[in-house]
């Protein structure tokens, strides 16, 4: 094999320059830092995560605390108390755990299914692609909330995990579309052809050569989807399809609705918490998209 053969150089580039993981994260961070909004988003996400993790340490009262009910915000209870005499601030802090769990769990599920299906469709093509995309389009055109309402009502039990499962199983289509789009274009690249000509199997090409390249796209999509799932859970709960035993922000809002005219703080603060969480993830996602230089060509 001559020295300047492309095959040999493909092998060589491995040792030439391979930035370590830390370096790559640092590069992304440096790009992210150029946008103030993205940094703010990252900050909000970080704060909410810390609150969720350390809720028992940070919350001024525990969630069973009962004193006088429906007291307006005061120095003692910064955000007031709810109908059962629990401190709203503490409830919101504990609620962040459920809401974040919902967002992250549903998105993880959606990504697993989305990548799997997008990958199959994009890599194998043909009839597999055709039929998978039909199903994808079908689910994608249906409006999410009505679909979720119908889907959640099959289950006799009202459980937060079931809501997560339902959302994950209905949310994958558009991830699958993006992933398929990426696969279609990456499949034609020279380096995949090179890998193929060197005898790499489908599985190896998918895992080692294509997946790493769609990872950043998936991360961006995931970040921006988290607030949606938090919203959907809150909305479903609010409409009476939720799990009353998991004190998510949706449950707080549902309770607050009962006292809409007499206790404004019960509905105002959980909503603000939802808003900031969503804002944080959206800003962070926008920043990540720019930093990772993701072009959305899946559409």
């Amino acid at each position: 094999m001559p020295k300047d053969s492309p095959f040999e150089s493909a092998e060589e580039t491995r040792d030439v320059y391979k930035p370590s993981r830390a370096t790559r994260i640092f590069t992304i961070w440096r790009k992210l830092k150029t946008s103030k909004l993205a940094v703010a988003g990252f900050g909000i996400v970080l704060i909410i995560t810390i609150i969720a993790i350390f809720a028992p340490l940070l919350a001024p009262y525990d969630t069973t605390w009962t004193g006088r009910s429906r007291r307006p915000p005061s120095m003692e209870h910064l955000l007031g108390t709810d109908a059962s005499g629990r401190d709203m601030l503490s409830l919101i802090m504990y609620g962040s755990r459920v809401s974040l769990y919902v967002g992250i769990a549903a998105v993880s599920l959606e990504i697993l299914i989305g990548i799997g299906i997008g990958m199959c469709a994009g890599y194998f093509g043909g009839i597999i692609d055709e039929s998978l995309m039909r199903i994808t389009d079908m689910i994608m055109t249906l409006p999410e909330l009505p679909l979720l309402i119908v889907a959640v009502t099959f289950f006799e039990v009202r459980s937060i995990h079931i809501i997560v499962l339902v959302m994950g199983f209905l949310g994958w289509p558009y991830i699958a579309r993006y992933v398929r789009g990426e696969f279609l274009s990456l499949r034609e690249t020279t380096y995949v052809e090179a890998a193929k000509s060197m005898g790499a199997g489908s599985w190896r090409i998918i895992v080692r050569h294509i997946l790493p390249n769609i990872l950043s796209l998936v991360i961006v999509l995931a970040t921006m989807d988290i607030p949606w799932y938090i919203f959907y859970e809150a909305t479903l709960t609010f409409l009476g399809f939720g799990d009353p035993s998991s004190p998510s922000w949706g449950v707080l809002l549902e309770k607050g609705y009962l006292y809409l005219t007499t206790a404004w703080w019960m509905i105002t603060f959980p909503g603000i918490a939802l808003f900031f969480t969503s804002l944080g993830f959206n800003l962070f996602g926008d920043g990540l998209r720019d930093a990772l230089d993701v072009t959305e060509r899946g559409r």
Partner: protein
Amino acid sequence: MITVLVFTLIHIAPGDPAIAMVGRHGLSKEILEKLRTDYGLDQPIPVQYLIWVSKVVQGDLGYSYVSKRPVITMIGERIPYTLELMLAAEFISIAIAVILGVIAAVKHYSLADAVASVGALVGYSIPTFWVALVGLLVFSFHLGWLPLSGVITPTEFPSPVHAFYDHLTHLVLPAGVLVLGWTAYLFRMVRSSMLEVLRQDYITTARAKGLRERIVIYKHALRNALLPVVTYLGYSMGFLLSGAAVIEYIFAWPGLGDFLVTIANVRDYPTMMGAGSIIAIMVLLANLCADIAYAVVDPRIRYD
């Protein structure tokens, strides 16, 4: 195909509709059995589906388990309200989004751009139903400017104009909340699409020809920038219906969304099946309209 999915999903659901229909107490096994036979609930799911489809083709969506009325009539009463709400929200959103989007893109990096962009970010990060509740609290309850809920105040009106005005005041809040969320999306679409078009060579050419800026922007740029936005409008039906579900419920707006929430809470299967299918059909029709509109706006697109 969608109906197969919805139908199967609804029917694998646990919870016996016969029991839901008559309440949990005080009925003997024989009566329950009879109800199941009467409504065809003892048949296997595929058979139930075929029976259902053959009736649907004849315009019969069955009867509600709860109110015992024909499903098609119940849905028929709801559709006009949903359409009214959605069309109002759609047109206002498009108008605001296009105007703001063009301004933001033309004056890129200006104060107006920054304010509008941050506004859009807030608009889509804010939970819709929460805005609805706060709006209700502030404008209807505390300020008393707008009515609390429903579509019209149940009184006598001196003239149809008064009645119409009263109806409009009922529309303001629900439509306004829908507009907030949808405008935020559309604005981002219009802005980014407009920015991309303004970077194209033919815009430079048009300017170099000495055309007035106004003509360059509205005739050359905007028309091309709106192409991707038009395809996006197809999704708007889904988006607005999604938002409408919760907003109609809050404002007691008697549309399809409120309907779905109510019947899902009582597991009224034939009605859910009907409402689900009608919603799906509406969304598909909207997508079809968007495809056609796309071909009209973009002469390069031809459907064979």
